[in-house]
């Protein structure tokens, strides 16, 4: 047992820390604000800068624009960026697609897409859910019909994050309606600037424009943009999502450590009803509990990163990562509100304006954490069936 990072990993962490000091992440403009998952806001400018540093493709092979380094090194970079609330959301879905490309892409696809993804010349969204297929991807209705050297896509996708900001989307569509549901789906790399594609942002209950709907109307997709084998799209998507479930949630402990530090600072400096918040035993207990849960979350996340670093693919472990992180995020938001109290609404106090604004946003947004990327209920089904071997319901 050893919970230290290697010398090389620590060296890389220092480089990231130095980068954040020299080029403060908050100085980069964001198209979508920080939603509290731990990977900050969605920023093309910052993502591009990360691409220049080579940090979007740390663990990819060098021949495809990567740095050929380890998964753990990639994790360390992401973790350090998260603590600095750097906006690294922009490449999250590209990461999932890159994972699919690396294992299932043709040589031509890898040579074409990966270097561009590594430099953030293109960004991706993932178009999976549909109005009639939320958690239930088996009932995907979007159709892809072969026509000469192309496929023609028709259908509607809903909830992709950032599809209105990204150039490309990974689209799941039905190629064989006669086959059993799980064996008739394929994945396509779709340029959303193609004729017939319409992307509309959807405003969420926190007021953010982060997720979208995509309409596909006779969209022509060249055959070489089929990712993986025809009709084998579903396992590929699950594989990509597996990584995405981890990478999308594995930074909670780092991002929220800063939230906790700020709440502690507020508590030590604030009086309410004539006494210091420090004397409120309930708040002390709740903040201590958050500190403990962040540490538990950190260890759960490290365990999964360690498994991946050895080349193992995650199964139920990423569902544990996600469920714990998302529900912890909700508890942090709730306790943050409790600490900040009704005065959270006084957002003109320069000292606490940023903290109050952040928690006002999280108060509303945190409800979505346990829904996005597979609900906590679906995650628990996965944990029960794959982690414990319980029979299918």
């Amino acid at each position, binding site marked *: *047992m*050893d*919970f*230290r*990072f*290697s010398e090389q990993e620590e060296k890389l962490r220092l480089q990231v820390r130095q980068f954040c000091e020299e080029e403060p992440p908050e100085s980069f403009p964001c198209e979508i604000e920080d939603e509290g998952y731990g990977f900050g806001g969605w920023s093309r400018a910052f993502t591009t800068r990360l691409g220049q540093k080579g940090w979007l493709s740390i663990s990819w092979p060098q021949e495809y624009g990567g740095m050929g380094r380890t998964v*753990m090194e990639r994790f360390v970079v992401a973790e350090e960026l998260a603590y600095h609330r750097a906006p690294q959301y922009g490449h999250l879905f590209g990461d999932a697609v890159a994972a699919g490309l690396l294992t299932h892409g043709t040589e031509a696809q890898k040579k074409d897409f990966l270097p561009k993804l590594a430099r953030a010349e293109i960004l991706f969204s993932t178009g999976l859910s549909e109005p009639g297929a939320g958690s239930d991807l088996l009932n995907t209705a979007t159709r892809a019909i072969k026509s000469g050297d192309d496929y023609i896509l028709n259908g509607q996708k809903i909830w992709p994050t950032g599809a209105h900001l990204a150039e490309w989307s990974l689209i799941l569509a039905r190629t064989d309606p006669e086959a059993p549901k799980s064996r008739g789906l394929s994945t396509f790399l779709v340029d959303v600037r193609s004729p017939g594609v319409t992307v509309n942002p959807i405003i969420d209950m926190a007021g953010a424009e982060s997720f979208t709907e995509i309409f596909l109307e006779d969209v022509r997709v060249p055959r070489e943009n089929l990712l993986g084998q025809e009709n084998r799209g579903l396992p590929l998507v699950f594989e990509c999502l597996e990584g995405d479930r981890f990478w999308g949630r594995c930074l909670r402990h780092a991002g929220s450590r800063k939230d*906790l530090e700020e709440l*502690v*600072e507020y*508590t*030590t400096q604030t009086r309410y009803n004539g006494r210091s918040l*420090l004397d409120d035993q309930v708040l*002390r*207990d709740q*903040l*201590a*509990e958050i*500190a*403990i*849960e962040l*540490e*538990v979350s950190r*260890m*759960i996340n*490290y*365990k999964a*990163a*360690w498994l991946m*670093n050895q080349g193992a693919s995650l199964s*139920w472990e990423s569902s*544990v990562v996600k*469920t*714990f992180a998302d529900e912890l995020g909700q508890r942090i938001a709730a306790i943050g509100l409790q600490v900040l109290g009704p005065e959270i609404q006084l957002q003109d106090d320069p000292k606490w304006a940023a903290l109050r604004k952040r928690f006002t946003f999280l108060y509303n947004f945190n409800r979505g954490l346990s829904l996005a990327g597979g609900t906590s*209920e679906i*995650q*628990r*089904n996965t*944990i*029960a*069936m794959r*982690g*414990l*071997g*319980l*029979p*299918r*319901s």
Partner: protein
Amino acid sequence: MDFSYSEEQEMLRKIARDFLATECPRDTIRQMIREQTGHDPKLWQKMAELGWMGLVIPEEFGGTGGSFLDAAALIEETGRASLPGPFFTTLVGTLALMNMGSQPQKQELLPQVAEGSMVLTLAISEPGVGYELDAIRSQATVKNGGYVIKGTKLFVDNADVADMMICLAGIRSGTGKRQVTPFLVDMRSPGVVCTPLQSLGGEKQFQVTLKNVKVPHGRMLAEGMETEREVRRLIKWAATLKCAEMVGGAQQVMDMTTDYVKERVQFDHPIGSLQALQHHCANMLIDLEGMKYITYLAAWRINEGIPYSKEAAMAKSWNSDAYKRICDLAHQCHGAIGFCEDHDLPLYSKRVMPSAFAFGDAPTQRQFVARAIGL
């Protein structure tokens, strides 16, 4: 980064698991709990022969010089088996001797512990006092070159079979400053009176009254050290080992529950196919994963000599609460059969609160954590 036990530790665990399954099956445990002492000297001797008592004792004192992590690995297994008896307190007592004992004390006592002829227990809490050293009222005074101790100790495990008790009592130094100090008290000393308590989970706990008990010179621990700091460290080690014990127990409860819901058929299906129960089981596994890694983190830090007080407090808080949630859900999954006295589940679920109380309960640990994060 490495989340795995070493090969040797895995072997230790495997041997312990197999040994306890054969030598200490659950029917035997239930029998031991019903009997007066809850301690089986024959089993104890076999454990000593396996090297368990000497696991952390240096070779020069008759042990095998194992590490704190080795001890945590073994305790995880005794927790899984819900082994009753004084092994836990003997191990913690051994750590006290190793870290606070003088060379002559170690030379005299550690070899006896290693060969299985010395059972140790701990006397910390008192009526109205948990683990807050400043509140401890038992008092030692210097008399005729030795000491005399007066006081009442609570929740002393297996006091009736222990040979020696590590007992905390205040003593005034030459400058008049009172310092809580551990003493080695021979349980056969005149004036030591053990009264069994009605325990929560079948463990054998006692109130021990010390009526002017004479303790000879040379039986004070931590002489010349920052005594209270050493005692606080010992309590954190004990709390961390208690966490490892809870991890083992929780793993067993998880396995038992998983097996049961796969086999038990109702409505023509195994009940494990019902999502309500699947989600109970998933919640148990999430809590268990957290228990393991926060415990390993604290144990590893102790092992490496990296500051560990905060992590140990975090582990004890999390494990105390999570183990309770796991047992609550396990009972819900088992239904009425798990509610029977002869079922294995109560062997674990009845001990949740005693484990949670031991070495500081969750709210107490969180008070410590609150201070540690700057509150």
